[in-house]
């Protein structure tokens, strides 16, 4: 035993580290906003409304409002703020997949796992045949993704290992379906973002994807993109088993910090909103 040699330590689990990182950043964002901000925002809003009412109620004053002259366009484009209720809601649900569709995708998903894990893979493709499918749903995909729909499923193998797959790709896995991995009532959703910039019809196209795990009580997730010229509808999916996937795309939006934001919100079985967050890119 050489006491000057560092004892070997197993590396921090990558998935766990990712969750902790996102959790830290989210909490840091929440703490950033001082308590007086909503009060000041409300006061500013009331001031703007009062000014507008006064200006509009002045009779015969159509010679050009001074306020209009002072509002010079800013050099940096900013993301527009659109109240959540102002955006329409669009469902991306395309119904349940059949057992054979789910099994075929599960085999491909586990085949994807095997080469990565070498001999230590927790499941083999043939384990899909005896797996218990917990949910298998077709989801409408967005412009830019290249396919019309994709199958999102969760299942457990006979040994109890839990998997979430998107099409033929493994999204995440864990030793047990019951593991909650840091989720609680205060933080009922943990997810991974993927933002892709593309082009369509000569213009920029932003594709935002979000794969997530939730508390079992959460059953619906919605996503919308806000950019410098407006906001997309809320795209929504229904899911079960505390896991899902959703995507949104927006023509004209650019995947650049400060020029786009992605809103996400989640609802429980009673329709109550239990989570919201913003991805700034």
């Amino acid at each position, binding site marked *: 035993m050489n006491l000057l*040699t560092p004892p070997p330590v*197993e590396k921090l689990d990558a998935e766990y580290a990712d969750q*902790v*990182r996102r959790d*830290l*950043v989210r909490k*840091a964002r929440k703490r950033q906003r001082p308590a007086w901000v909503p009060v000041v925002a409300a006061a500013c809003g009331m001031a703007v409304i009062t000014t507008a009412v006064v200006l509009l109620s002045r009779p015969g004053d159509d010679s050009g409002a001074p306020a209009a002259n002072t509002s010079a366009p800013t050099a940096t484009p900013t993301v527009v703020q659109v109240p959540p209720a102002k955006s329409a809601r669009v469902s991306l649900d395309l119904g349940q997949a059949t057992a054979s569709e789910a099994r075929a995708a599960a085999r491909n998903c586990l085949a994807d796992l095997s080469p990565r894990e070498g001999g230590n893979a927790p499941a083999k493709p043939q384990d899909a045949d005896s797996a218990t499918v917990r949910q298998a749903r077709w989801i409408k995909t967005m412009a830019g993704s290249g396919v019309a729909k994709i199958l999102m499923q969760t299942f457990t193998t006979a040994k109890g290992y839990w998997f979430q797959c998107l099409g033929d790709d493994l999204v995440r896995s864990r030793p047990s379906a019951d593991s909650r991995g840091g989720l609680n009532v205060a933080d009922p959703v943990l997810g991974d973002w*993927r*933002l892709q910039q593309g082009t369509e019809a000569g213009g920029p196209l932003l594709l935002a994807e979000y794969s997530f795990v939730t508390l079992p009580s959460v059953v619906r997730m919605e996503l919308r993109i806000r950019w410098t010229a407006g906001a997309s509808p809320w795209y929504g999916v229904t899911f079960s088993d505390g896991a899902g996937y959703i995507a949104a795309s927006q023509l004209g939006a650019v995947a650049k910090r400060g020029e786009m934001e992605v809103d996400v919100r989640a609802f429980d079985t009673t329709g109550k909103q239990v989570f919201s967050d913003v991805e700034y890119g």
Partner: protein
Amino acid sequence: MAMTSSRRSQPPAAARDGDLWDALRRAEPEALGELFSRYAGVVHAFAVRHTGSYASADDAVQATFINAWRQFTRSDPGPLRYDSARPWLLAIARNELRNTTRARRRLTQFLSRQPAPLHQPDHAEAVAARVDSEKHIQAVRAALAALPVHERETIELVYWAELSVAEAAAVLGVAEGTVKARLSRARHRLPALLEENR
């Protein structure tokens, strides 16, 4: 659709810790995420070796980065020293571990007065590997226990966490000469320790 770029929603990696440090001084939450990505592994290894427990280390990692963020939001810690945030983070981790060690000692005393719980072994391979690792670390720490606490900490920081003497001095809040002296004394004692623990 022609993809021009594809990435995860993470901030661009700062070239140096100094850039990251400046972003933290501006209280940019994403910089905290980047700091975590860079140093969570280092803090985790330090905490595991310090406590001999992976569970305690997981808690310590989270607490360290939460406290790190608090320090930036509470007051400006000034410019980065040593070109690396590692010594600064390990200093926070060390304080955190000291506090939790005291709390755990109180909890252990409380539990020792309670009825023994039912034994519930966990046979998962991952858990077994961690248990083996914890046993090894605890054996090494038991051997090191013959050293005074301040020499033990110096060994942990310089040899195990691979800090420079200057960085270890900053973490411990002592002069560089003190660190050198502690290392020298510990090395004199260590051959005997190695013999006793063979």
